[in-house]
């Protein structure tokens, strides 16, 4: 059996015990074989990691669905305890009043949101650049004209389904106070699992904050801080502030 065949069988979990012995021996003696094996193993791990982050996203969406759809049920014998808690809450409320207003989701959004720069479509005003819809859209984006950006990017996104179009469209919606629509766009980028994945998670969390959906925002922030990539430290801080 040749080496290629052995690798093939290894990755399909199909090595017999004799072949397994040959395989182990080759790993020890044949450095070229070992290098090829390690490379393919890394490819496998990379694919698994990519799929895992998509699965984590899906599971976390299921979790937010559960939280938003289930109404708390009040059982009669609990009412006394609830009354007692209300008294406590009122006194706590007075104390918390001032701190809440500085930490409301909307406030947190305002202090953490930063417009993402145009990194995909360089604009050279001095050159005679062809006036494509894309150029106009990103010009509008750079000059903070978000109504126009929305209009142009919506048109573009209906023609081609590229992650960066959805990503910047999400920003334009967010700047235009259309958080619900922004959420859809960032989710769209995330499910593609490619360009702007980590950035979109961060802005999705912020869009949830803007929409006053704190528990959904926190689910996403947990993923960001766990993944340790774009804005992971800010995500940790926001989690503490909203705990």
């Amino acid at each position, binding site marked *: 059996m040749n080496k290629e065949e052995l690798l093939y069988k290894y990755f399909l979990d199909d090595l017999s015990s004799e072949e397994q012995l040959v395989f182990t021996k080759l790993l020890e003696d044949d450095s070229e074989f070992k290098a090829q094996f390690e490379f393919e193993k890394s490819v496998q791990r*990379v694919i698994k990691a990519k799929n895992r982050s998509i699965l984590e996203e899906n599971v976390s969406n*299921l979790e937010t669905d559960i939280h938003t759809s289930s109404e708390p049920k009040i059982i009669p014998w609990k009412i006394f305890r609830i009354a007692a808690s209300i008294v406590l809450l009122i006194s706590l409320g007075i104390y918390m009043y001032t701190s809440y207003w500085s930490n409301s989701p909307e406030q947190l959004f305002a202090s953490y949101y930063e417009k993402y720069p145009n990194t995909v479509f360089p604009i050279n005003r001095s050159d005679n650049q062809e006036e494509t819809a894309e150029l106009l859209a990103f010009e509008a984006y750079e000059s903070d004209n978000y109504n126009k950006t929305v209009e142009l990017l919506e048109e573009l996104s209906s023609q081609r389904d590229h992650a960066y179009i959805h990503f910047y469209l999400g920003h334009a919606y967010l700047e235009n106070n259309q958080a619900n629509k922004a959420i859809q766009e960032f989710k769209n980028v995330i499910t593609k699992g490619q360009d702007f994945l980590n950035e979109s998670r961060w802005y999705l969390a912020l869009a949830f904050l803007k929409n006053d959906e704190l528990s959904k925002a926190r689910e996403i922030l947990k993923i960001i801080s766990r993944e340790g990539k774009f804005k992971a430290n800010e995500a940790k801080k926001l989690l503490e502030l909203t705990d």
Partner: protein
Amino acid sequence: MNKSKDVILLEELKRGSDDAFKKVYQDNRTKFLSFAKKYGLESQDILDIYQDSYITLYENIVSGKLIELSSTLSTYLISIGKYKILERLRKNKHKVNDESIFNFYNENDASIEAFDLEFEKLTTKEELLAMYFDQLGEKCKAILIMFYYKKYSIKEIMSFGNYNSENVVKSQKSRCLKTLKQLFHSTPKQNE
């Protein structure tokens, strides 16, 4: 405990059905969370463990490690969960209560010896490889995912991917790997 219903769900999960993914997650959540509560973990930790266990089960289904059910899906989830709970308790240097651990594993557990239970973070080099992977064409990505993740044989890839012959699949697969390798090796050494 309806095994024939689970057999159908397993098939649907294998096919990648979103509805089945949602149903199995929701149906087992309460049972799992109340089981895991016994071990003195924070509720957020417990939810993390459930999600991790669920994804682990799903990954093993997709990669063909779980082909035929010898218990219900819920039993598989609890068995994976036990492994993850113990791991978390050790990590937290939690004093493990002997009594609750004494009966931890039992004859009702599903057999998960063949499963991949760990998920290790990518190395820096692999993060780089992940970036290059994104640069491959859609066809290449699809073929590599089918082989390395779903563990489809060349023959299966041929029929799923509408290829004309096994040889075409083989040469396409090695071309894709070669492209990826070239991208990877053209990286300056200081990034290693």
